[in-house]
């Protein structure tokens, strides 16, 4: 089955889902789509630049809190504005943090990003007068395309207009990331991942390109974060805790980071499996920890690695 066919079917399926799935399951699709956007960005860093960030939840938090802040302090509920501001803030924060982090690799990069993530967490937790502390801040129902849909019951709003809006954002995000990955820039990133010394000898500045990747991933993270707020209705500091960053990496690994859509698949499986487990026992972490251990030991290629034959992350046209 060709990749395009599968993709087409998946998209068609997603479009049709609201008519088929129960409202409960549909609402679960919302964080999945938000995480899909976030993970597309994380994977640029992970699979294409070769950097493992343990602080990516920082950007998710930036995006989510943007929605809360704009709603509470500026009365702005237009989702387009929220997403735009979130993207800009994500870019700015990523640019600054990235400047400091991209000189380092492997464990030092992981540690630095973890530290920055926890700085943001502490800030958000402790300055409760502005951020609501550990209770968090409410996120108002956004206006979609300027339309005020407050009259709709919450569930209908979420599984109807909001669902399709998030789907639209996910599709756009995927298309944009696809272009990025298949661009000259994407090629340069992969050279850095494969052999930084050689890349430099060919004129590709390693730290500069890593920085670009970091900023892009920050933007995607913030946009996804902005989408994450409304369904829950509330954002709180746990969104930014280091274990949440770890879960993001987990999702990427679960789906298979070597394939473009792997991490998105990972987000899907993570969210629905978590829900399935929770309905039986509250100990989803135990199950997921075991799954993660199993993946690391037996199937580091993740789910995509099990199903698809091994191929390079970017599918360049082959004869």
């Amino acid at each position, binding site marked *: 089955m060709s990749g395009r066919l599968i993709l087409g079917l998946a998209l068609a399926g997603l479009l049709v889902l609201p008519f088929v799935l129960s409202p409960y399951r549909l609402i679960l699709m919302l964080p999945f789509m938000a995480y899909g956007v976030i993970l597309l960005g994380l994977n640029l860093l992970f699979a294409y630049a070769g950097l493992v960030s343990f602080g990516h939840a920082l950007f998710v938090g930036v995006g989510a809190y943007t929605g809360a802040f704009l709603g509470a302090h500026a009365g702005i509920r237009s989702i387009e504005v929220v997403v735009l501001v979130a993207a800009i803030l994500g870019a700015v924060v990523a640019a600054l943090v990235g400047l400091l982090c991209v000189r380092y690799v492997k464990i030092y990069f992981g540690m630095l990003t973890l*530290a920055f993530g926890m*700085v943001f967490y502490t800030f958000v937790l402790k300055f409760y007068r502005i951020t609501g502390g550990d209770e968090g801040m409410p996120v108002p129902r956004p206006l979609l395309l300027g339309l005020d849909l407050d009259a709709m019951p919450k569930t209908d709003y979420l599984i109807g207009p909001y669902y399709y809006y998030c789907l639209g954002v996910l599709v756009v995000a995927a298309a944009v990331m696809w272009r990025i990955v298949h661009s000259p820039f994407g090629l340069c990133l992969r050279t850095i991942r494969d052999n930084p010394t050689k890349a430099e000898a060919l004129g590709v500045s390693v730290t500069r390109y890593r920085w670009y990747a970091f900023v892009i991933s920050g933007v995607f993270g913030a946009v996804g974060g902005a989408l994450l707020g409304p369904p829950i209705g509330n954002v709180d500091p746990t969104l930014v805790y280091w274990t949440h960053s770890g879960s993001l*990496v987990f999702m990427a690994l679960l789906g298979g980071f070597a394939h473009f859509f792997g991490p998105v698949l990972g987000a899907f499986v993570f969210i629905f499996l978590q829900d399935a487990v929770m309905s039986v026992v509250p100990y989803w972490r*135990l199950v997921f920890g*075991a799954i993660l251990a199993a993946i690391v030991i037996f199937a*580091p290629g993740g789910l995509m690695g099990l199903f698809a034959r091994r191929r390079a992350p970017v599918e360049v046209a082959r004869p």
Partner: protein
Amino acid sequence: MTANLVNVLMSGVFHAAILFLVSAGLQLVFGVQKIFNLACGSFYALGAYVGVSAVSAFVSAGGAPVLFILPLAVAGLAVGAVGLVVERGLLRFVYDRDETFQLLLTFALVLMMEDAIRLTWGTAPQSTSGYYLLYGQARVLGAVMPVYNLIVIAASVLIAAGLGLMLTRTAFGRIIRAAADNREMAEALGVDMRGIYARVFTLGTALGTLGGALVIPATAAMSEMGIELIVEAFAVVVIGGLGSMRGALVGALVVGVLRAVAISVYPEIEMLLIYLIVIAVLLLRPRGLFGGAAA
């Protein structure tokens, strides 16, 4: 005024004593196996919960409450054996893998242990209420502090000295240092790396579980304690330098005391100050105070 300062300092030193134990375990494992064990905080939590249970069991079985520190310490050390199980059962499969995967495996452990603890002990905090003050209080430089704290600090210092002696004077210690320095050469010289790894990891775990057990009388065992402590331990090893035992000692003091000072002066910033220092260290002197060459 001085009494207040001494109080703050001593509470910081007490916290540093506990932090040192956990961080020393972390450093040992990183130094020899080059794995950053995210689950060291989880072992700390495990030690705490087991410690509470051990003390309760001891007292219900008729043991004198004033001896509570014995079952506490013994249980804390004994449950370190879990490290052996983890090392042989999980960790050894990823020694040849990229360090990212090793890190992720320890993260898997964090997840599993968090829920395993919840499953066994529930979510309500557990404590050894009251036993804390059984040893009375002492006057130190005008301030009053629990003797228990002093005992723990003394124990930690003794352990630090013991570790130092072990590393420099015993054959095991020499092998550890050789393996930390150059694994291939140690193997070529006939060192059984698998055995060393198992023992080092178990020792590292035991230090963590002991730390968790010893802190219990002063606080309560709570479900978040594991994932919260790892960030502090991480700060300790960054400041002190990855892989260095001296670094664990100095780093623990820095973090412990600074945190105590921050809490008493401006509670909002508490860990924020520590993280900023971590970032500063990583940027200005990545190898920390005593670490080897940066990656």
